Each structure stands twice: as structure tokens, then as C-alpha cells.
């Protein structure tokens, strides 16, 4: 008997297997944000020694965001060759196809998060383990939603790959900048803050910062949880619909 969970595991392990068989690419991509962190942190205003506390959760969100927005990119190729079609004919539950593929992007990023945190510990970074784990769950939910949207975008872009890359690139940076991931937006102009308020990622980033700092039972946590749940539900809903209707 299969369930949504076993189906997701089937899709996830299929997706991850080529990476595990050839781990070099993933090791390389894991080191990337460390470089980023090393070059960016010294630029941040650091009056009270909290730059890392503020920046590290943001970097973790950023890697996860980039990775899950790429969920559809492997798919583009598999749509062309026919292996996606083959998966669609199997009784695999449609949400499992979306979640399994998104998780394949997300899970390595969590390994990377552990690496980033470990590297930052000697430089004075402190975090709450419970909070951080809860934070990653919220982040995973958000990224599953985003991955499902990326999947949908790939379905819509078949036979015109440029569409996928154009939309992905056009959306990802505003999403990131308007969530105060790299630079704080508290001091920005009113319109910018209004946009940030409308960006679900803002709530997730705030929740991550609060949770990593051990501020578990806060309104930030609740906001992040809600924003992630909404994005996950939306992404899965849109994705399943797109799969049904796709020619």
C-alpha cells in the first residue's frame, strides 16, 4: 500500500539519487554561501555584535529560497525527454510529485544550514536548538510551496525554456530584497515597507530570526508559520491543478 508519505519518499529518493552518486556538485554549492557570508558580514553595521545573529538566519533562508525556486529546472529537461510523462502515468499522488521534488532541493540546504551554523559558532554566533529546528520546519513548508510554484512554472514553460528562467529570475530577487534578508528594511521608505509587509517571505525571515534567537513563543513565529502554511497550500493547489490541465 502506498500513502502520500511513501509516495513522497519514492519521488524524493529518486530525485536525490543522482546527486548522491555524484556528490561533488553538491559540495561545491554548499560552500558558496559561506563565501557570501564571509564577504558580506563585515559590511553590515555591527554596533552591538549582533550582525551574525541577524545575518545567519537570513542566509539560510536565502539558500533555501534559491534552491527551491530551481525545483522546476530539472523538470524542464524531463518534460522534454518523456520521463516526467512516465511519472505522471504512475499512481503516485500528485502532491507527492511536487513535495518530493521540492524536498530534494531543500534537504541539502538544511545540511548546508548545519554547516553554516557550525562555521559561525567560533565567531560568536549563538542559537537555540529547539527554535532553530522549528524554524527549519517553517522554512521547509514555505519552500515546498515555492518549489511547487516553480514546478508549475516549468509545466507552463515547456517548449519555451526562456520563460522559466525569465520569470524565476525576475521574481526571486525582489522577493528576497523585499523580505529584508540581506539588508534591513526598517529604515526604508514607506512604500518599500508596505511591499515588504505584503511579502510572505518577510514573515518567514522574521520568524527564523526570532526562533534562532530562542524567542519561540512569539508573534513572529506565528506570523511565519501562517505565511509558510499559506504559501505551501497555495503552491500545492496550483501545482496539482496545473498537472491535471497540462497538455
Amino acid at each position, binding site marked *: 500500500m502506498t500513502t502520500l508519505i511513501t509516495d513522497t519518499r*519514492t519521488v524524493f529518493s*529518486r530525485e536525490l539519487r*543522482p546527486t548522491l552518486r555524484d556528490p561533488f556538485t553538491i559540495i561545491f554549492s554548499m560552500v558558496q554561501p559561506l563565501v557570501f557570508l564571509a564577504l558580506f558580514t563585515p559590511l553590515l553595521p555591527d554596533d552591538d555584535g549582533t550582525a551574525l545573529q541577524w545575518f545567519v538566519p537570513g542566509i539560510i533562508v536565502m539558500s533555501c529560497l534559491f534552491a527551491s525556486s530551481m525545483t522546476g529546472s530539472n523538470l524542464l529537461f524531463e518534460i522534454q*525527454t518523456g*520521463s516526467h510523462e*512516465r511519472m505522471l502515468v*504512475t499512481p503516485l499522488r500528485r502532491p507527492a510529485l511536487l513535495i518530493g521534488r521540492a524536498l530534494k532541493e531543500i534537504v541539502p540546504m538544511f545540511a548546508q544550514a548545519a554547516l553554516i551554523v557550525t562555521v559561525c559558532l567560533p565567531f560568536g554566533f549563538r542559537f537555540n536548538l529547539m527554535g532553530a529546528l522549528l524554524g527549519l520546519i517553517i522554512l521547509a513548508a514555505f519552500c515546498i510551496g515555492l518549489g511547487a510554484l516553480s514546478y508549475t512554472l516549468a509545466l507552463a514553460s515547456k517548449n519555451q525554456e526562456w520563460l522559466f528562467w525569465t520569470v524565476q529570475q525576475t521574481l526571486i530577487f525582489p522577493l528576497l530584497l523585499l523580505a529584508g534578508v540581506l539588508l534591513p528594511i526598517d529604515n526604508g521608505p514607506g512604500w518599500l515597507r508596505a511591499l515588504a509587509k505584503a511579502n510572505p517571505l518577510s514573515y518567514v525571515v522574521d520568524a527564523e530570526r526570532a526562533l534562532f534567537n530562542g524567542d519561540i513563543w512569539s508573534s513572529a513565529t506565528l506570523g511565519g508559520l501562517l505565511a509558510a502554511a499559506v504559501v505551501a497550500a497555495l503552491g500545492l493547489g496550483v501545482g496539482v491543478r496545473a498537472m491535471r490541465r497540462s*497538455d
Partner: protein
Amino acid sequence: MIETRGLAKHFKDVRAVDGIDLTVAPGELVALLGPNGAGKSTTLRMLTTLIPPTSGQATVAGFDVVRRQRDVRLRIGYIGQGNGAGHSQRGRDELISQGRAYGMSVRDSRTRAAELIDSLGLAEVADRRVSSLSGGQRRRLDIAMGLIHAPSLLFLDEPSTGLDPQNRANLQEHILALRARHETTIVLTTHYLDEADSMAERVIVIDHGRIIADDSPARLKAEHVGDRIILGFDTESDAAGAAATLDAPRQGRQLHITTDGAPRRVPGILDDLKAAGHPAAEVEVRRPTLDDVFLKLTGRSLREGGAEATRTPELVEV
């Protein structure tokens, strides 16, 4: 097993499938035959739940293809026109995950994968990246993937395209064995006329999204074309005399006679001609191919698409 009514699919202004009524009983082996763009793949894609019909309906393995997709998927296998195996994957891994997708245990998937790898001659390449396989090896892997769960209804979209004759024969054997062992219902499309002819007891000819003929290969040929006897004469006057004797149309020094059961009739005809004093100099019996059927039905040849046909005229010197 399959029941469709007015099944149609339109892509913008292309009527890819234009109203198909089809009934396939359990255990049948049906070949869909038609030129490029006839709507074969689109038909299979609707029957396998991949695309929703524009209009009409279809029941496959007892379930509606739109409303009960999962129930349909659980009961069918599909080998598409493309490559089912992911190019960055390894063959054996794909076979196992395909088994898992159909709810088989890891152990069963492994065993079954090993069996299929063995019987489809993939032992040497099953643990390599799919992208490094030759076209024919990849095709055999696709077929193995479609067979992993031994479905009771199997759809194959041009399964043998890209295979060499030996592997093609091997595949045909495989399909027939599968059918004998599990009473699998099989619907396949093909460009190889000899394949449709020798394997399927029912051939459905599709053109412009419609079914234009549906019968056994033998009946299609008998009904639409018939055998032809071509008689050659040394002189035009012999030919003219023979034409009068047999009441057959003449083309120069040749007579063309359309009939059933030509090989049995030839000796009698030759005797009659000799008795009448217009002996034939040569004789050729042409048995029709499915291509002749297609040509007759549509005015076009199927073979223009690059597919091959076997036409072996039996030439007899008298």
C-alpha cells in the same frame, strides 16, 4: 477494458483526435496504425490520463479517465513515445523507483528489475547513466519500466522504433509472452506495418484523428484490396486474346486481375490460357500489405514517413 465515445482532443485549431468510438475487450491485442500526426499518441495520452479530452468520454479498466484518474493509473502500464527513464539516472535505480511508484516493496522491485534487466538484455548497461546508453538500449529500458508491475492493460507508443531487427523480434516475443502469461490487454501504435500485421489480431487505422478502418489484418486486406495476379505476355495480341478469354483489363502486354486466394487460382488460369492459345510468359502474384490498404483508404502511402514494409512479390517464371 476500454470504451470510448466521441473521444476528441483539439489543440487550438488542430483537431488531433476528432471523435473516436472504440471498444477493446479484455485480452485483445490492438495495433493503432496511422501516419505521422494522425493522432495516435494523443489518443493514448487521453486513455492514460495524461491529457484531458476536449470532448467525449473514455472508460479504461472500468474507470472514467477524467473523474477516476488514480483508479485508471493503478491498473495500466504505459510506455510513451519518449524516454521514460531519466537521463541523469541509472537504469536499475529507475526500474526500482518505478516499482515503488506502483506500490511494490523494495525487495519485489529489485527482484523484478533484475528479471527484466536479464530478459531484455540490459545486464551490461543497467548500472550506467541512462544518458550514456544507445538509443536501442534506452528503448529497451523504457519497455522494462513499463512492464515492472505486470499491468493487466498495457499501452505502448511505438515501442519498437529505434530497435534493430533482432531486438524488435525479441520485443515482439516479449509482448506476446506477457500476453500469454498474464492475459494482458495490449494497445500499441507502430509504424512498422509488418509488426502490426504479424502481432495484432486487430488493426485500427487512424487518419486525421478519425478511425477509418478497424478489423483483422487479413480481413482488412481481403476487403479493401484483395490479391492481384499480374500476367505478362510476349506479344500484344496474346495479351489481347487473354484479356478476352479471362474478361480482365489489359495494360499493354500485361493483365491485372484482382481476386481473393490468388495462389490457388493461378494454375487454373494458366491452364485456361494455354488451352485458349494465349499462353502467359510470366506471372506475378501480389499479396496486399497493410500499406496497400492504407493507400486504398486514404490515397496516401504510410511508408512515406520512413517506416518500412515488407512486400515480397512472388515472381514465377513459366
